[in-house]
């Protein structure tokens, strides 16, 4: 099976505090640690497992600046066979639709049977997979947390729905699926793995390579544009307990006692 996984480089929220910059034009990006979007990492792991079972290749594609290459290489170290880096000044400022337009062209060029995306990203909106499927006129499922290859052109998939319930369907290939976290346990990538793929060439595709008209992507193609960033002011907020750990714990125990939760 020819599988394409669409991945994104994002600030790692487990490593960073995310704050708004002074001008309110962006988040504070100095000193941020970036990594591959968590959902996408599960998608790559799932693609590798499918390939190992039924054969084929796994290609990862990512759209972004030069640094994006790091995350493509990381996922290749994990076991993806090929990487593609979509980079073009014309793609800067794309909204979800613009990204889907570029990815559609890439899918057409590569002729993939299965396209996976992460279900969402911390700085995104969970939209690219569904848009891409509609543009390709292929079936789609969001929030997929189980995949089984059941036939030459069918998959049995589970979707995560409310209350921890799971919805099972049969979907036809070629299709697009957005992957929910928890579908598998992504393998660890060590330094040795990274070294092994350090010199593998990752082709860079610009919009002329995939025949995408400039006006359909980037700022000009965007229908939804960020104006500014701000810090939410919600409710009165918690009463923050101050002092040494001992003082805080004493206060907290008093409070819990008053709630009848400690005798």
């Amino acid at each position, binding site marked *: 099976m020819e599988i394409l996984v669409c991945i994104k480089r994002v600030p790692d929220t487990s490593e960073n505090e995310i*704050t708004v910059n002074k001008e309110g034009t962006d988040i504070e990006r100095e000193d941020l640690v970036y990594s591959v979007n968590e959902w996408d990492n599960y998608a790559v792991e799932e693609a590798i497992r499918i390939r190992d079972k039924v054969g084929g290749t796994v290609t990862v594609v990512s759209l972004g600046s030069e640094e994006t290459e790091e995350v493509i290489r990381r996922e290749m170290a994990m076991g993806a066979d090929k990487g593609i880096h979509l980079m073009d000044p014309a793609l800067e400022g794309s909204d979800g639709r613009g990204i889907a337009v570029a990815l559609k062209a890439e899918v057409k060029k590569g002729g993939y049977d299965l396209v996976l995306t992460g279900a969402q990203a911390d700085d995104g909106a969970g939209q690219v997979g569904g848009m891409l499927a509609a543009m390709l006129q292929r079936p789609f499922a969001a929030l997929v947390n189980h995949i089984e290859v059941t036939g030459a052109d069918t998959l049995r998939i589970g979707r995560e729905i409310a*209350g921890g319930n799971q919805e099972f369907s049969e979907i036809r290939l070629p299709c697009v699926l957005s992957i929910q976290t928890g579908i598998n346990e992504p393998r660890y990538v060590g330094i040795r793995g990274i070294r092994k793929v350090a010199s593998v060439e990752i082709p860079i595709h610009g919009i002329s390579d995939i025949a995408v008209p400039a006006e359909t992507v980037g700022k000009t193609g965007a229908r*939804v544009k960020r104006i500014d960033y701000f810090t939410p002011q919600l*409710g009165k907020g*918690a009463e923050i307990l101050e002092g040494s750990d001992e003082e805080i714990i004493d206060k907290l125990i008093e409070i819990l006692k008053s709630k009848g939760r400690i005798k």
Partner: protein
Amino acid sequence: MAPMIAYILHKNGVIDDTALELKSAAEMLEPEAVPVAVVMGSKKDVEGVCQEAARSFATVWKIENEALSYPNAEVIRPLLSRILPKGSIVLMPHEHFSMDLAPGLSICQEAAYLPDAVGFEAREGQSLRAVREEFNGMVRTHVACDLTQGAVITLRPGAFTPNERKDKSGQIIDKTPEAFQEGAPTLQRRFIELVEAEAGDVDITKSEVLVSVGRGIEEQENLEIIHELGKVMGADVSCSRPIVDAKWMEKSRQVGTSGKTVKPKVYLALGISGSFQHLGGIKGSPFMVAVNKNPKAPIFHVADVGVVADILDFVPKLSEKIGEAVK
């Protein structure tokens, strides 16, 4: 004026609460508009839902077919694009079904897609200024959405004040013939079955006190300190999504929209950032204590009492003191 459409969710013949939130959002967008409620389902379900919707909406479109007995976005999307006028503004709640349906619908409609809006601030002509969250609510953004060719907008459940007035006796229009004029859509994704979540050893939906742990625990071995606190407090232990994703705890212990809905009296959120999906699973306004090393964590917006500390240091000390106090 663009047609304003509210896509109504329902389950077992009962209309979803979000219907009234869609209505107020529609009125904010276009005060003069008469929003149309769209209800799709099987014969058994759809009638009662349409009647309920007609108390809030002046016009209700009913689409009824056995193919709609289970809401399959791959069936509903082509049907909707047959009946929705081009340029419509379509509103629906942001949850698992709309994440499946809405992005693709925006492409079919050639409309803009504005996902997971938490507020509308202003409209200038065909530009809507809306509010979204990023990074789990740590920051918010204003976005400008171009409505010129219509839009599909999903709304964060609970973010828009519902319009509770039920003073309409709306007209129910059967749109089934129009939707199925070209027959049923080709089925590329067939619903097989629904598998309910397994019951765990503890039913956290019944717990009065929950000690709940999140990503801040860092390693599986560290969970011991949480169980110890649960023990000395006589509380049950629950968790947020990353703990279940890592397979460190059973799914039945997960609090959130994709896990369990709990209603304790006291909730200790330990190393939990407080995403809306997690908070969506906590009902009944418990007294909430949050411990998190990130002072900007959104959990501090909703907690009653907060402690800025690393749970790995703080929780063992807390357990020890409580242990002494209980003795």
